[in-house]
């Protein structure tokens, strides 16, 4: 295992995701809910892509399919050219694409250190002591040195999420799948979490697929922001963010940032209105 903390920025050689014409229908025989329809998206290796869209539009469905929690009905998703999800393959989660969950899914019955070392140890990639050494090193990098014996319930939400991201990264995944990880946080914790995530992204260069409904967060973090339509979801437009890296909070006030934001607000607002009207139709 190479600990790549010597190279400050290294772009990943792999981790390219290709979502091709994906359709996902829940309960096709019965209720028949079309969550995704003709959804396509290209994510380059090492790219940070944020997906925004109204709630219930299918963002999480797409992430769950990528993670291997769910089937696709039509279309396919490729990871580095190899089929990851097709209608004929059995979905299989794996440590090459680890999910960080919205509510957090650190095991509350394991200490921070046990949580972080869980992946490499359970896959028998590292023995316990080697995994612990690596875990300590990675925790230290995000300023979490003295909490390894703590249980997740004793940590703040910001710390918990940092630990969870480290627990994912220690497996050296190709892709990091983040499902609104900072949703329930207050503003201060959130912006601190952004900085830590960007630091880790710069250091590891992993492909990141990031779901959010916070437009500023999306622009601030991502290389590319994709807007998903209301259900049935597909990618309506993808905007490249050309803000230089490393990024800092001052960019939130830059001309470029504001221009991107107004562009996104326009696109998302349209979908939100549609979603709202669709909701009203369902209620009537």
């Amino acid at each position, binding site marked *: 295992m190479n600990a790549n903390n010597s190279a400050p920025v290294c772009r990943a050689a792999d981790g390219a995701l290709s979502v091709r014409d994906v359709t996902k229908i829940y309960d096709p025989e019965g209720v028949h809910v079309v969550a995704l329809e003709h959804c396509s998206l290209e994510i380059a290796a090492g790219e940070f892509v944020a997906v925004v869209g109204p709630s219930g539009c299918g963002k999480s469905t797409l992430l769950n399919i990528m*993670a291997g929690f769910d089937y696709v009905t039509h279309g396919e998703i490729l990871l580095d050219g190899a089929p990851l999800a097709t209608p004929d393959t059995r979905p299989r989660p794996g*440590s090459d*694409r680890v999910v960080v*969950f919205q509510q957090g899914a650190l*095991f509350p019955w394991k*200490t921070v250190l046990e949580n972080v070392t869980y992946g490499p140890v*359970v*896959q028998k990639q590292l023995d316990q002591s080697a995994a612990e050494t690596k875990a300590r090193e990675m925790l230290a990098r995000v300023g979490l040195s003295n909490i390894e014996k703590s249980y997740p*319930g004793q940590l703040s939400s910001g710390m918990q999420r940092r630990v969870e991201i480290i627990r994912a990264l220690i497996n050296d995944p190709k892709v990091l799948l983040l499902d609104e990880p900072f949703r329930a946080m207050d503003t201060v914790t959130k912006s601190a979490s952004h900085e830590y995530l960007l630091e880790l992204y710069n250091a590891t260069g992993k492909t990141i697929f990031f779901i959010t409904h916070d437009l500023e967060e999306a622009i601030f973090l991502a290389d590319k922001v994709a807007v998903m339509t209301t259900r049935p979801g597909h990618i309506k437009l993808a905007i490249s963010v050309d803000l230089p890296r490393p990024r800092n909070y001052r960019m939130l006030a830059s001309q470029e940032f504001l221009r991107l934001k107004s562009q996104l607000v326009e696109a998302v607002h349209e979908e939100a209105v549609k979603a709202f009207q669709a909701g009203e139709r369902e209620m009537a």
Partner: protein
Amino acid sequence: MQTALILIALAALILGLAAWRIQGQARLYEVGFGRQLATTLSSKSFQLTLAGFVIFVGLWWVTVSLLKLPWFNRLPGPLEVVGEWLSPTPTFGISIYTKDYYTHIFYSTYRATAAFLLATLLGIPFGLLMGWNKKFYDYSLPLVELIRPIPPLAWVPLAILVLPGSEPAVIFVTFLVAFFVTTLNTLLGVESIDDNYFRAAKCLGASNKDILFDVVVPGALPFIFTGLQISMGASWFSLVAGEMIAAQYGLGFLIWDSYSVIAYPVIFIGMATLGIIGWASSALVRVVGRRLMAWREAELSGGARAEV
């Protein structure tokens, strides 16, 4: 002599209550027992607990010994009961000085423990399997739901006829109740585990076997231990019923036997002993649970606990 013994018993009661409070707070590992004892004894809520006891015993004394209300006047007052309990020469043959008293306690404890352990050993794996395997769940749940409501006493005749002797019959009846409680709470525990923990474990490369031991068992543990506490209580509950019908020794037998010879104080001694042993056994289960679930303790002491 008698007064001294009563005073000693009173002191033991207060200390026992304080110890119970302390283990209820579970901070024993952090500050020493002595300091914890001092804080507990002087705390407001402990004094309220004590006041509750005093009021209870006081009402008993007033209704029975002082006012001698109709129906109540045949009952022994608290002083008579404690006097008999602590007497070296008890009028009705049962006190802390008699060998018989401990024989009864031994038999009841042995039966309850055997039934409880058997129920735990079988009930936890059964419940885990039900929660873990959908097929097994479909097979077994309707059966469990049908058999469970049958009261323990209804099993006694069958148990005596089928099993060799009354001893296994009493244990079996006790086991049955504890088993269902443990099984269903374990099942509930597995069902309570957030789906994301399973997903996270799979993402991190865990096999099904890993998930069983790293997610299912620890995730269900809080419910399992709640179940074990209830199961312990239920064990005593059905044990006494069983002993009243089919046993030669045991506290249930003692109470029933005293009824037939109208030995009031012994009935009280038997009941009070059951209360103390039942409470102590539940507390023991709770302490073991705490030891196994350090993470929950850490969470509880980390967060603010409501203080009324």
